[in-house]
């Protein structure tokens, strides 16, 4: 099968030649920081992105036309995930029911629908049932009903089973194990059949505003900017898409949502969002170990009781003996030496887990941040010209670890509210972009609100000295018995980025070396995600201040970014001359998980969207 190695060599050849095309870096190679108190040597320039160095002040961009082609739709949706696609589908369903015409456009940064989707996932079908009562006849990929549900606490060598009594949030009776990427792909097909315009491979990179400050729409990413930030021959501006209302469904910690929170002050009355990182692998296991429909969750080892997290093992029933396994680590962890990737790899060796994987082989890997804030962290959801749905504002039911059913429902509610308003001839909007506070009211009257309210105290109850076990006790008493009706609402700890303790106050963790059969090294894992980006573009992991990684992150926290990134993007390497280190950003490896933007203790990293089409190539993750 020599084609494989020849193709690999060809790809390396392609990459090399594409790299040779780039123009030489401009003379401004080093940026001297005159007011830096810790370093007097020039800081090597890392960030070249135009969001940090605007192009209207850059001499290399003089004379380049920055005009953009513009088009109009009725509704624009950013992000083709479960929420975005459900909103698009429901809008078209309502339009066809009532004989109206609606132009709905969805932009998605992945090259194909579902390629950036990653989740466990165990789906509660109730909102899918509302969207498509005939989902089964339509061939929705829900092939694996849950048959067995187990929960355990792991110690270093043993597993303590915990009974899942009816009424506990972790029980999965009636649910389905799905490959969410395939479900999203199926939703995309249904959307196209209904006439939704889907544009995968085009990322929304900018929010556009009317003169009155309301949202006008979005602009897609520019293409053809070289790594040093200068225009290439193939430079072309992105396109503007205008709409009466824009739905932002970017998923957990969206980059446009981050801007919108600031612009419209949407987070003034809610708590900051808190997150976790989820790492996942797909394994083909030995048939004897395969139990289709079985679900297993664990907490405990290798995390200590103060670090929130746990694992899942889901046995799929889709023909081959496929098992989805994953590990979640709360991003409010305190030890900067913690590496979520390596915790995941060493967890696989536990005597209760390893036997399932022995004799099998790994076929996929990926990672994504997820919300843990629940009810307390839901921001204001609407603003003139737009609204937020899905995991972007965050409707995840944390103890159930399910957010897909609420995301789908939020998309449907948005569609209903929007449809009612924009087809109402008597409706006159005060602002150029339509403001829909009714969406927020409808959401608060729906089952999403009741469900999230009932479980609101479970995650914060893990912050006591008893840690995760305190949380389990709290769940047992207040959720199982009292159904979440207690009159108080516990608070979270604050921003995840502020929870890290300085490295000198913490002990480094000794992780075992990967054995290459059950556990693996980072780079071979990243290769399995299929991630890639056009090499000759500015790094999309932008630093507000290039001197901070070495002067603050490395010196105080020992560079936690080299540990929490599940794709090896951040590396501290020795400088060419003299002592000291510099940060090297391997932007091509990025899997778009957003963890760095969340956990950077200096909040100096700003993740922006790279050229559309780049990123992971997940298949049914």
């Amino acid at each position, binding site marked *: 099968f*020599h084609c494989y190695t020849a*193709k690999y060599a*060809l*790809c390396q*050849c392609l990459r090399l030649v594409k790299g040779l095309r780039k123009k030489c870096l401009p003379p401004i190679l080093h940026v001297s920081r005159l007011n830096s108190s810790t370093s007097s040597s020039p800081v090597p320039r890392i960030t070249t992105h135009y969001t940090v160095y605007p192009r209207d002040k850059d001499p290399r961009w003089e004379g380049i036309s920055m005009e953009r082609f513009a088009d109009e739709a009725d509704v624009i949706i950013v992000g083709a995930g479960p929420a975005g696609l459900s909103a698009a589908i429901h809008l078209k369903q309502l339009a066809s029911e009532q004989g109206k015409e609606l132009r709905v456009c969805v932009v998605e940064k992945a090259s194909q629908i579902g*390629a950036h989707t990653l989740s466990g996932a165990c789906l509660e079908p109730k909102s899918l049932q509302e969207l498509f009562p005939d989902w089964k006849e339509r061939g929705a990929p829900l092939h694996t009903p849950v048959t067995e549900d187990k929960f355990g606490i792991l110690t270093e060598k043993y597993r303590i089973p915990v009974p899942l009594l009816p009424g506990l949030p972790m029980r999965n009776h009636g649910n389905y194990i799905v490959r969410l990427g395939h479900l999203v792909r199926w939703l995309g097909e249904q959307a196209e059949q209904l006439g939704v315009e889907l544009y995968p491979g085009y990322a929304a990179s900018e929010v556009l505003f009317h003169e009155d400050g309301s949202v006008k729409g979005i602009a897609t990413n520019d*293409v053809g900017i070289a790594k040093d930030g200068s225009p290439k021959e193939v430079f072309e501006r992105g396109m503007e898409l205008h709409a009466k209302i824009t739905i932002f469904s970017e998923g957990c910690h969206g980059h446009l949502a981050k801007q919108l929170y600031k612009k419209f002050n949407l987070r003034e009355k809610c708590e900051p969002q808190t997150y976790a990182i989820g790492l996942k692998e797909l394994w*083909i296991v030995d048939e004897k170990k395969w139990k289709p429909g079985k679900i297993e969750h664990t907490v405990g080892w290798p995390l200590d009781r103060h670090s929130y997290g746990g694992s899942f093992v889901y046995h799929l029933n889709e023909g081959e003996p496929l098992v989805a396994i994953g590990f979640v680590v709360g991003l409010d962890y305190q030890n900067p030496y913690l590496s979520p990737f390596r915790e995941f790899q060493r967890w696989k060796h536990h005597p209760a887990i390893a036997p399932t994987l022995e004799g099998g082989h790994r076929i996929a890997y990926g990672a994504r941040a997820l919300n843990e804030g629940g009810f307390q962290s839901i921001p204001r959801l609407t603003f003139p010209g737009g609204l937020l749905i899905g995991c972007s504002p965050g409707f995840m039911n944390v103890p159930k670890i399910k957010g897909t059913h609420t995301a789908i429902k939020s998309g449907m509610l948005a569609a209903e509210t929007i449809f009612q308003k924009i087809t109402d001839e008597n409706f006159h909007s005060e602002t150029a972009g339509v403001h829909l506070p009714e969406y927020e009211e409808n959401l608060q009257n729906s089952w999403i609100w009741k469900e999230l309210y009932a479980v609101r105290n479970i995650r914060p109850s893990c912050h006591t000295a008893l840690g995760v076990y305190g949380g389990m006790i709290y769940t047992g008493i207040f959720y199982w018995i009292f159904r979440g009706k207690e009159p108080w609402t516990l608070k979270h700890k604050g921003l995840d980025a502020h929870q890290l303790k300085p490295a000198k106050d913490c002990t480094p963790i000794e992780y075992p070396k990967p054995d290459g059969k059950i556990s693996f090294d980072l780079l071979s894992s990243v290769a399995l995600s299929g991630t890639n980006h056009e090499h000759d573009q500015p790094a999309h992991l932008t630093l507000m201040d290039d001197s901070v990684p070495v002067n603050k992150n490395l010196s105080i926290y020992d560079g936690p970014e080299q540990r929490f990134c599940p794709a090896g993007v951040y590396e501290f390497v020795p400088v060419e001359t003299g002592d000291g280190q510099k940060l090297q950003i391997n932007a091509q490896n990025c899997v778009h998980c957003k963890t760095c933007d969340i956990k950077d203790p200096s909040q100096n990293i700003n993740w922006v969207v790279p050229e559309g089409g780049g990123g992971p190539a997940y298949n049914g993750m």
Partner: protein
Amino acid sequence: MSARVLVGVKRVIDYAVKIRVKPDKTGVVTDGVKHSMNPFCEIAIEEAVRLKEKKLIKEVIAVSCGPQQSQETIRTALAMGADRGIHVDVSGKDYENLGPLQVSKILAALAKKEDVRLIILGKQAIDDDCNQTGQMTAALLDWPQGTFASQVDFQEDSLKVEREIDGGLETIKIKMPAVVTADLRLNEPRYATLPNIMKAKKKKIDTVKPSDLGVDLSSQLEVLSVEEPSQRQAGVKVETVEDLIKKLRDSGRI
């Protein structure tokens, strides 16, 4: 110039994706895997569109042979500037057996049917690395060929093609109609931007069957099995020359 150009584009598994062999060893897993246009086909389309922009040719036709999804690849070609597309519908067992010989028969038939003066193809596809389709198409049509082109100059009735060969660069002059295959350094393809993708939705894609073109898809080749390359064995380090000789003797090498 009223010439028409035919450009072949192939839908292949994206070069950055790690491929996996199917458990039944009949091929690689393609379902749900990210596909994109063969990089050399992108370069071919770019060259054809540039010729049209220089007003040296009249029309660019993009062709792809394969199942329904090949139409996505044709759409990308249309978004890059091709005028219309032809989807040759081949699926199932026929698609599994589709190789350079079958494709070149199809391209030759289309070239005659569409009265084409120039065929531009990528030099090879990154999934099979055959590097045969361009050459076979030229032979079937009895046309001259300029393969591994890194530069193409259009002259009245002929082409000056600079080719990348093992020894360096070779420049040849070939009469049209001709077949040219694109190599890496021919050009840097433009992006298929969103406004162009939207416009491309309005451009025409005709679907034809190989039988409509009178082409027989039967293959003389049968794939017996597809396997992963064998795992690289760990090497053994030795300390001295004597140790090395002893090890070589023990394993029967000397």
